């Protein structure tokens, strides 16, 4: 090739979808669908307009937040939510360790793998609120149902992430421990655990954070804790007390979030 030919040779990044007609058809299809979707969403602008002052009055009812008149109920609710969170996180993580190990394809035999993946799939396919409704029906109102809900949801979350972390580990390190003649439990303890531990501690703290927030939601459907207190406040139209509860939840979530973030950085 001559120098001139080399200089004028152009290059463009190859498109993601090679066939031009398919590329254009997909783009056009997406545009049409979006237009139709917007077209079928009915927004009644007069009602929105009339609703604005009502919304303003609703929000105004939140102020000033009243921490005092329902303080003992609020305090009890917060304490209940916190112990629900602690118990559910500890039990959930403890149960998810064997499930997670069994659900790691690189170390578990096929039947164990499919069984544990099944548990994870069931646990993950339902949102906490749905699980809570189910467990409240099963065990009756109160924090026990909430605890079971959060623990069960924790298994799905933590077990799946543990399994994936084990699948991503460095096989050479694990192989080296196996070559020393270590038994299976020793192999897990020396070859696998050190590789996944820092990340799993971080995820445990993260799950604690999630469980606290979920404990408020779970309470609304009858699972006890601060959510129950919040629900009662709304039912009684005590919006100022509800505002106080919301502020406390936000404060606690922020404290947990920052402290878990700090701890996670320290563990890594």
């Amino acid at each position: 090739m001559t120098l001139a030919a080399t200089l004028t040779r152009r290059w463009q990044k190859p498109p993601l979808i090679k066939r031009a007609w398919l590329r254009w058809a997909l783009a056009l299809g997406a545009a049409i669908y979006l237009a139709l979707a917007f077209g079928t969403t009915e927004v009644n602008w007069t009602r929105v307009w009339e609703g604005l002052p009502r919304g303003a009055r609703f929000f105004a009812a939140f102020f000033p937040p009243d921490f005092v008149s329902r303080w003992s109920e609020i305090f009890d609710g917060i304490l209940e939510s916190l112990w629900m969170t602690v118990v559910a996180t500890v039990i959930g993580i403890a149960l998810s360790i064997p499930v997670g190990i069994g659900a790691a394809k690189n170390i578990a035999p096929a039947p164990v793998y499919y069984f544990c993946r099944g548990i994870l799939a069931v646990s993950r396919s339902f949102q906490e609120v749905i699980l809570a409704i189910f467990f409240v029906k099963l065990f009756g109102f109160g924090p026990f149902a909430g605890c079971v809900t959060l623990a069960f949801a924790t298994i799905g979350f933590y077990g799946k992430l543990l399994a994936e972390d084990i699948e991503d580990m460095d096989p050479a390190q694990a192989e080296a421990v196996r070559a020393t003649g270590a038994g299976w439990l020793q192999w897990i303890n020396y070859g696998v655990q050190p590789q996944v531990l820092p990340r799993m501690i971080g995820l445990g703290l993260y799950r604690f954070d999630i469980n606290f927030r979920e404990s408020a939601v779970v309470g609304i459907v009858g699972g006890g804790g601060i959510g129950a207190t919040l629900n009662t406040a709304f039912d009684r139209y005590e919006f100022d007390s509800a505002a106080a509860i919301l502020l406390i939840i936000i404060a606690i979530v922020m404290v947990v979030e920052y402290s878990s973030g700090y701890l996670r950085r320290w563990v890594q």
Partner: protein
Amino acid sequence: MLRIKGLVKRYRTGDLALKGIDLDVPDGQVMALIGPSGAGKSTVIRCINRLVEPTAGSVTLNDLEVTTLGRSELRRARRRMGMIFQEYALVERLSVMENVLSGRLGYVGFWQSYFRKFPQSDIDEAFRLLARVGLDHMVDKRADELSGGQRQRVGICRALIQNPELLLVDEPTASLDPKTSRQIMRLIKELCAERKLSAIINIHDVMLAQMFAERIVGLRVGEIVYDGPPDNLTADVLTKIYGEEDWSATIRKVDDEAAEAEEAAAAVIPVELPLPSRDRLAGLT
């Protein structure tokens, strides 16, 4: 004495990695296994301690048939074979001491190892080995804080604390610089001599193999194509192992480093080959 007879390995993908290997390694012999990538070097040593299950054939270590052992017997057999790995394979988040002591896992119970309560004799031996390789001041450092050469020394300690009868060494110098590579190979050779250990060393670097091994076995696509002393590695032999190439720079020359490392063995320049140019020599050392 390690005796391998008719060792065959076919992977589940259908690839025939080893086509019937016969190999005897007498006690105290340091043997280098050379060959191109994919020739089956790693498979050979992993079939010996059954990290890879052989398809057929037998492996006998001092009259113990390894290939037919059950699970717990295999554990006990693995204790007798120390393994040193490519890229060190230390557990990076464990300390140097924990990595060395993990070589004793085959000898202690689970709870003992879980609480890191190893017998004092094991701890004494670990300190002795770490002192021998010059790392006794780093016992509580995490393995990933060490340099490559230091890590491989910890790997050597982990293998030796097993009190093995045989060392299986897989590409010990693959990620080390030339000087550290020589130091590590020299260390392995010295330790084998001190403890009358035999060793099988998989190695890419033909020069290093010639410098530090007393016997060389060449493997090509799952078959042994050379078995003999390092001095007989001629250009023809290397071509048989690796394929056509200009081998004049690879074959061992009289060279200070080599002479120092192998005081006893006289270096030999194969007669049929032209003397290497000074530039080549400089480039290699």
